[in-house]
């Protein structure tokens, strides 16, 4: 085995055990940031010991024993400090006495600890970037280097981000909370935002990017699965999971042999992952059974589900999509959502109906430099036979396009107008 092989094997063994390590330590220490630190220390210990001693037969047991030993050392130091300050060490004694039963009760509580971890990492007090890094670190076991590669940031930046995030949590006394009931529902929004951010970062990765970038979609999916596991009565958690599974299901069909993106309506649906679609639709069904119909993520998942259910582009239920965008638009005032609604209405009711919606949002400041506004208008005008106007619209879209590919597409559409 080469040194690189050994390193990979150690990292893999640690990653397999990492969920149990961090949840155990979290419970022992009643401190999530500290648990994270000691989990990392345990990895360092293995990286130091195993190249010479070899990977143990039961690596998980070695890692857990090492982690617990460090935690106990920490608690003992705290106990000594407490004695020094004349405080009663009763709590620490009780903690130590509870140790023997610890393993048995943890297995029941691993869900509780996972819940704490994910809600701590995604605390609204932290910036979304910091929360994303912390979540990927604590729940997914990514290294700083992997997170840095995934977000195209320098490793030092990510490292600092994580250190600062942990400090913010410690200083605010937020090291071990258990959001429940209403508090959980409130805090859920932050968690969903962070997970969705991670997914989108991975989803927009281009071919030729570092492999860690599209891998972010898998990490986000994993976070989504953990989340529905610890918050099984939250419809929006299932909604987000459904949205991610359904979007990820098109991964193999999204780019051509040259790495150029293929529009959804032009994709080869035989390359869609039907197992993933089934899981996405199941999650969506669960969300609806929990009463989540009008939710932000549930609505988006419903829209994508319309595409997923259609065997061919022609079979798409555009009326339903238009209706769903209508509900979404009423909930979230967004000109981009209205633009998407215009496309759907155009497909369902004809270009005149679509154009009416476009005209209503023509002056929205948010869309001023968005090439798809004139692009979609051009499409409707072309279908209505208003050729000169259509050509002008496509040319405007080409001028606004942010990259060569979009510009080429708009210029081609301009040329194709009779």
């Amino acid at each position, binding site marked *: 085995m080469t040194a690189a092989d050994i390193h990979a094997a150690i990292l*893999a063994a640690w*990653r*397999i055990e990492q*969920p149990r390590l961090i949840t155990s330590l979290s419970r022992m220490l009643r401190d999530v940031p500290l648990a994270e630190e000691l989990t990392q220390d345990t990895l360092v210990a293995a990286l130091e010991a195993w190249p010479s001693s070899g990977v143990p037969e039961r690596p998980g047991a070695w890692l857990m024993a090492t982690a617990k030993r460090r935690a106990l050392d920490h608690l003992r130091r705290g106990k000594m400090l407490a004695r020094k300050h004349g405080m009663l060490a009763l709590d620490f004694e009780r903690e130590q006495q509870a140790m023997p039963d610890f393993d048995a009760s943890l297995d029941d509580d691993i869900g509780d600890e996972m819940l704490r971890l994910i809600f701590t990492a995604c605390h609204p007090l932290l910036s979304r970037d910091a929360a994303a890094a912390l979540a990927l670190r604590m*729940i997914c076991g990514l290294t700083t280097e992997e997170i840095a590669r995934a977000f195209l940031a320098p490793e030092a930046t990510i490292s600092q981000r994580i250190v600062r995030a942990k400090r913010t949590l410690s200083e605010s006394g937020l090291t071990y909370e258990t959001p429940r009931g209403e508090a959980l529902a409130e805090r859920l929004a932050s968690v969903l935002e962070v997970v969705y951010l991670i997914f989108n970062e991975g989803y927009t990765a281009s071919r030729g990017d570092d492999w860690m970038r599209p891998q972010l979609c898998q990490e986000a999916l*994993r976070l989504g699965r*953990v989340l529905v596991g610890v918050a099984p009565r939250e419809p929006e958690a299932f909604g987000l999971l459904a949205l991610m599974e359904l979007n990820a299901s098109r991964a193999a069909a999204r780019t051509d042999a040259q790495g150029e993106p293929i529009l959804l309506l032009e994709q080869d649906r035989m390359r869609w992952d039907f197992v993933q679609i089934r899981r996405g639709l199941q999650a969506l069904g669960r969300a609806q059974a929990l009463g989540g119909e009008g939710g932000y993520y549930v609505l988006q998942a419903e829209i994508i589900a319309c595409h997923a259910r259609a065997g061919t582009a022609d079979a798409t239920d555009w009326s339903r999509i238009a209706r769903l965008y209508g509900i979404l638009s009423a909930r979230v005032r967004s000109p981009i959502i209205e633009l998407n609604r215009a496309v759907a209405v155009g497909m369902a009711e004809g270009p005149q109906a679509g154009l009416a919606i476009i005209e209503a949002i023509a002056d929205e400041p948010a869309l001023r430099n968005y090439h798809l506004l004139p692009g979609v208008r051009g499409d409707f005008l072309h279908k209505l036979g208003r050729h000169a106007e259509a050509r002008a619209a496509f040319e405007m879209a080409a001028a606004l396009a942010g990259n060569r590919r979009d510009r080429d597409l708009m210029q081609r559409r301009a040329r194709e107008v009779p």
Partner: protein
Amino acid sequence: MRFMYIVTSPQPMQAPTPALMEAMGKITEREIKAGRMIDNGGLMPLREGARIAIANGKLSVTDGPFVEAKEVIGGYAIFELRDKAEALAMAKEFMQLHLDYMPGWEGICEMRAMIGHGTEMSGDEKAAILAEAIRA
């Protein structure tokens, strides 16, 4: 990357010991809560199933109780993991449990990466499979 694990053992299939069941249950729970397990299943004994075989240009059906098999598939699991090293570590841990809690048991856990989930077959691999199919 997605991996499937298929466990085979010699006939007759032994039921796992309670200790093994408990240990496997803990790993399963850990993996579900960690969001890494996608699917898993135990299979009913071969007696409840059947074998449909092709040999010497003929198709034959043998009902479960009459199948002569030296080894039988016991179950499968599917995980979403980072890479082959993780998949190996998982498999070794799983099999170590058998060693620890069901001494005397012998068997094989075959670990296979699933096509298309972070693993694309190379052009050469695709060509080789096609060539074999044509030859057969």
